[in-house]
C-alpha cells in the first residue's frame, strides 16, 4: 500500500483553480500521512460527526471515542480487558454493605488548565449531571444508583446536599449508593456519564446547569484526560494533543490523535487505502473477503459485546403464543446466516448475553431441531404453517438488515411453511414504531455500555423503557432485583443464569447473532488491543515506524 509521490501537475492545476480562499480552509494542524510519518500522530476514522464533547449531555459512540481522550474517571479501563484500574483516584474502599465508596484522589490529579482536581470539583460535577434543567440523556446511569439522586431528579427532594455525593477533604470523595451496585466501578471506568467535568470552567461560559454553552469548543474545553482539545472543525476533523498536566503524562506516547468524521464507510475504506487513516471505524461487509486475501495484516475482527435479535410483540397474535416464538427461534439456521450473509465472523446467538461476558457465559441455550420446531408450531394450531397469518417483520432501512431478513424469511418459509412480509422504515420512524409497540416482529440490537451481563438482562424488566415487547414476567423482575443485592459476584451470576433460562424459555426476543467489530488497521498501530467494548485507552497506543 505504498503511496507514490504527488506529481506537481494536479497540484498546480488545483492551485490555479482555487487561487482564492485557500488560506481560510487550511487547517491549523499540519499535513500527516498514515504511511511513513515519523511523528506519533494517530489518524482515526470516527464514524459520524460528534454532537458535542460535554460528557454529561452526549449519547453516541463517536462522542465516546473522542471524550475518552479528553476526560478520565476516578477509575479507568485496563487497556487489554477494560477492568477498572485507578484513574483520577489512586485508591478506593468499599464499605462492607457495598453502599459507600470512598475514593482517594491522586495528589497530582490536575485539570488540563493545571488546576488541581479536588473532591469538591467532583461533588459539583455530579450535581450537574443530575440537575433536571441540564436534561442529560444519561443522567439515569447516575441517579438510578446514588442515594437520593432519583428523588432529587424527580423533584421529590429539594436539598441537593442530601444526595449521596460528599467531599470529606480536598482529596477524599464519597459516593453513597441507594443499593449495593456490584458493577458500579465498571460503569465508572467505561461510561463517560461518570467522568468529572470542570464546573468552575463551565460557569465562565454560561449557566452551569444548561446545555448549549460554548465551554466545549476548542480553546474553552478543559478536561482531565491524557489529551486536550486542539482543534474542532465540524465535519472535517477533531485534533487532540498531549496534555502536559495529565497525572500519567509519562505513559502517553502519542503526540496527537486526529479523529475524522467518516459517515460513509466506503469512503472511509478508500481513505484508509490512500494513507489518510491508520484505522477505520468500520469496514464494509463486501470488503472483508478482499482484505482477507490481499491485506490480511490490516484486517481486524474483534468480538464486540452486543446481540442482534428479533423482538416479538407478545401482545399480538400469533406471537402471543410462546410455542410460536420458540418454533420461529428454532427454525433459524444461524451458522449458515453468519457464514453466508453477515460474513464478518459474527457468533451465532443461542442466548441473549454474549458468551464470555467478563466471566459469565449463559448455560441456558436455545436447543432443539426442526422437528421440534414443527411440532411446537402444530401444537400452537398451525400444522405445517397452515392457517398462520402473515407476520410483518420491521427493520430499519439498510442493505445488511434486509439481507438478513430475507435469509430468515426464506428459512421460515422452507422449514415451517410460515410466510412473513418485510417492512423497512427510516431509522427514527422505526424507533417510534418500536417504542410505541406498533409492530409484530422487529429487528433489534443491543450494545453494552459497560462490561457486565446486567446490561443485557435489565432491559427485559417489565418497567424498562427499552423492553418494548409487552412481555412482563414477575419472577424475572424479582430476580433482577435479587441479583443486585447478591453478596458476591458468583451468586449474582448464578441468579443471571436463572434469568437467562427464563428468557430462552419465554423468548420475548429471538437471539440471532453476537456482534463482531470489523475494521481496517495499519500494522504500525500498537497497543490497540481487542476489547469487548471497542474501547482502546489511548495512553497505551503508539505507532511503530
Amino acid at each position, binding site marked *: 500500500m505504498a503511496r507514490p509521490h504527488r506529481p506537481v501537475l494536479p497540484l498546480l492545476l488545483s492551485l490555479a483553480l482555487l487561487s482564492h480562499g485557500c488560506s481560510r480552509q487550511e487547517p491549523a494542524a499540519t499535513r500527516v500521512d498514515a504511511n511513513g510519518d515519523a511523528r506519533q500522530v494517530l489518524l482515526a476514522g470516527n464514524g459520524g460527526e460528534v454532537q458535542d464533547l460535554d460528557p454529561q449531555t452526549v449519547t453516541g459512540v463517536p462522542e465516546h471515542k473522542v471524550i475518552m481522550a479528553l476526560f478520565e474517571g476516578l477509575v479507568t479501563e485496563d487497556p487489554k480487558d477494560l477492568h477498572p484500574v485507578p484513574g483520577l483516584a489512586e485508591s478506593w474502599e468499599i464499605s462492607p454493605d457495598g453502599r459507600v465508596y470512598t475514593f482517594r484522589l491522586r495528589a497530582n490529579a490536575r485539570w488540563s488548565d493545571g488546576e488541581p482536581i479536588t473532591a469538591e470539583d467532583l461533588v459539583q460535577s455530579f450535581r450537574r449531571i443530575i440537575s433536571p434543567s441540564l436534561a442529560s440523556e444519561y443522567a439515569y446511569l447516575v441517579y438510578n444508583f446514588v442515594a437520593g439522586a432519583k428523588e432529587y431528579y424527580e423533584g421529590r427532594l429539594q436539598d441537593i446536599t442530601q444526595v449521596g455525593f460528599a467531599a470529606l477533604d480536598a482529596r477524599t470523595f464519597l459516593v453513597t449508593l441507594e443499593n449495593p451496585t456490584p458493577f458500579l466501578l465498571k460503569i465508572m471506568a467505561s461510561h463517560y456519564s461518570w467522568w468529572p467535568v470542570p464546573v468552575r470552567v463551565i460557569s465562565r461560559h454560561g449557566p452551569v446547569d444548561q446545555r448549549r*454553552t460554548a465551554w466545549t469548543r476548542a480553546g474553552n474545553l478543559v478536561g482531565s484526560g491524557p489529551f486536550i482539545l486542539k482543534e474542532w472543525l*465540524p465535519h472535517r476533523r477533531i485534533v487532540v494533543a498531549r496534555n502536559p498536566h495529565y497525572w500519567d503524562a509519562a505513559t502517553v506516547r502519542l503526540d496527537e490523535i486526529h479523529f475524522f468524521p467518516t459517515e460513509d464507510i466506503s469512503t472511509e475504506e*478508500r481513505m484508509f487505502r490512500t494513507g489518510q487513516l491508520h484505522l477505520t471505524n468500520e469496514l464494509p461487509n463486501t470488503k472483508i473477503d478482499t482484505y482477507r486475501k490481499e491485506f490480511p495484516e490490516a484486517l481486524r475482527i474483534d468480538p464486540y459485546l452486543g446481540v442482534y435479535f428479533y423482538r416479538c410483540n407478545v401482545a399480538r397474535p400469533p406471537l402471543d403464543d410462546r410455542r410460536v416464538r420458540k418454533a420461529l427461534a428454532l427454525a433459524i439456521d444461524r451458522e449458515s446466516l453468519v457464514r453466508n450473509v453477515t460474513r464478518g465472523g459474527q457468533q451465532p446467538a443461542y442466548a441473549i448475553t454474549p458468551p464470555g461476558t467478563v466471566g459469565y457465559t449463559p448455560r441456558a441455550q436455545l436447543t432443539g431441531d426442526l422437528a421440534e420446531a414443527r411440532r411446537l408450531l402444530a401444537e400452537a394450531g398451525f400444522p405445517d404453517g397452515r392457517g398462520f397469518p402473515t407476520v410483518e417483520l420491521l427493520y430499519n432501512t439498510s442493505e445488511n438488515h434486509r439481507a438478513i431478513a430475507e435469509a430468515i424469511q426464506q428459512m421460515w418459509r422452507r422449514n415451517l411453511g410460515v410466510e412473513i412480509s418485510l417492512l423497512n422504515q427510516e431509522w427514527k420512524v422505526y424507533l417510534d414504531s418500536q417504542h410505541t409497540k406498533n409492530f409484530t416482529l422487529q429487528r433489534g440490537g443491543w450494545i453494552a455500555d459497560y462490561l457486565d451481563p446486567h446490561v443485557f438482562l435489565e432491559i427485559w424488566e417489565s418497567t424498562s423503557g427499552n423492553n418494548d415487547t409487552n412481555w412482563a414476567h414477575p419472577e424475572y423482575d424479582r430476580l433482577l432485583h435479587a441479583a443486585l443485592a447478591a453478596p458476591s459476584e458468583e451468586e449474582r451470576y448464578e441468579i443471571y443464569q436463572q434469568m437467562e433460562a427464563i428468557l430462552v424459555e419465554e423468548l420475548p426476543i429471538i437471539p440471532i447473532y453476537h456482534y463482531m467489530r470489523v475494521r481496517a488497521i495499519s500494522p504500525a498501530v500498537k497497543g490497540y488491543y481487542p476489547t469487548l467494548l471497542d474501547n482502546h485507552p489511548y495512553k497505551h497506543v503508539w505507532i511503530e515506524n
Partner: protein
Amino acid sequence: MFRFITSRFLQSLLALFLVISATFFMVRFVPGGPFTAEKAVTPEILRNLEAHYGLDQPLWRQYLDYLGSLARADLGPSFKYPNRTVNEIIADKLPASAELGAISLGIALLVGITLGTFAAVRRNTWIDYTASSFGMMGISIPTFVVGPLLVLAFAIHLGWFNASGWYYPEDRVLPALVLGLAYAAPISRLTRGGMLEVLHQDFIRTARAKGASEFRVVTRHALRGGLLPVVAYLGPATAGILTGSFVIETIFQIPGIGREFVNSAFNRDYTLVLGTVILYASLIMALNLIVDIVQAWMNPKVRLEG
C-alpha cells in the same frame, strides 16, 4: 423594471412564508422526534429535554415563537449539535458548498456550452455524436458511480489526490470534476437544442449572407438566443449546486450544507431542517428573479411585467 422587482419580491416573501409554515408543521407530524433513540431515555428525562427546547408548549405557540425569532434573523439552536446554533452551522457549512458549487458551475458551463455549441454547428458529424453521447452518459450515470470511480483511478491507483476530505487545495479537484461534469451534461444538451433552433432562423441566414465568418455567426449572433434554455435551467440549477450535493459531500467527506440538508431531516433536527429549507428556498427565488431579468435582456420578446 422597479415595479417588476418589487412585486416579485413581495410574491417571493409570501411564498417563503408558506414554505416555512408548511415545513414547520410537516416535520412535526413525521413519526419520531429529535430525542427518539435506540436506548430510550426515561420519561422524566424526556420531559426535561422537551422543556429545555420549548417542545412542551402547544404547537401554535412554538410556531409563533419560531416566527418571532426568525424576525430577529435567529434560526434557533440545533437539536443534534447542542453547542451550535443553526445560524452558525449554515455560516460554517455554506462556504464549502458554495466554493465547490462555484468551481463546478464554471466547469459545467465551460464544458457544457462548448460541447453543445460544437454539436449544433457540426450537426450529425462525429463531433455531434461524441458530444451527445457524453451528454447522455453524464445524465444517466449517477455521481455516486462516477465519484468512487475517479477516486479509484486518481487517488488510489495514481495517488495524485486524497480519497476524500476538504483540507488542501487539491482536495477540490475530484469533487468539482464529478459535480461539474454531471451538470455539464444537461447544459450541453440544452445548448445544442437551443442553438439548433436559432441557427435555422432568418437573422442567422442574413448574417451569413452578409459574409460574417462562422465563428462570428455563432458567437455574436446565435449564442445569445441559443443559450436561452440554458439560462432558464441555470436558475434552479445554481441554487441546487451552490447549496451542495448530498451525494458528492458524502462521498468526498466535504463539510458542506448539502449533507446537513438531508441529515437534519433524518435527525429530526427541526430547526436545522427549517434553516436549510429557508436558505434553499430563498436562493431559488432570488436566482429565478435574476434569470427572468437576464432572459428579458437576452430576448427582446420578453417583457418584464409586475
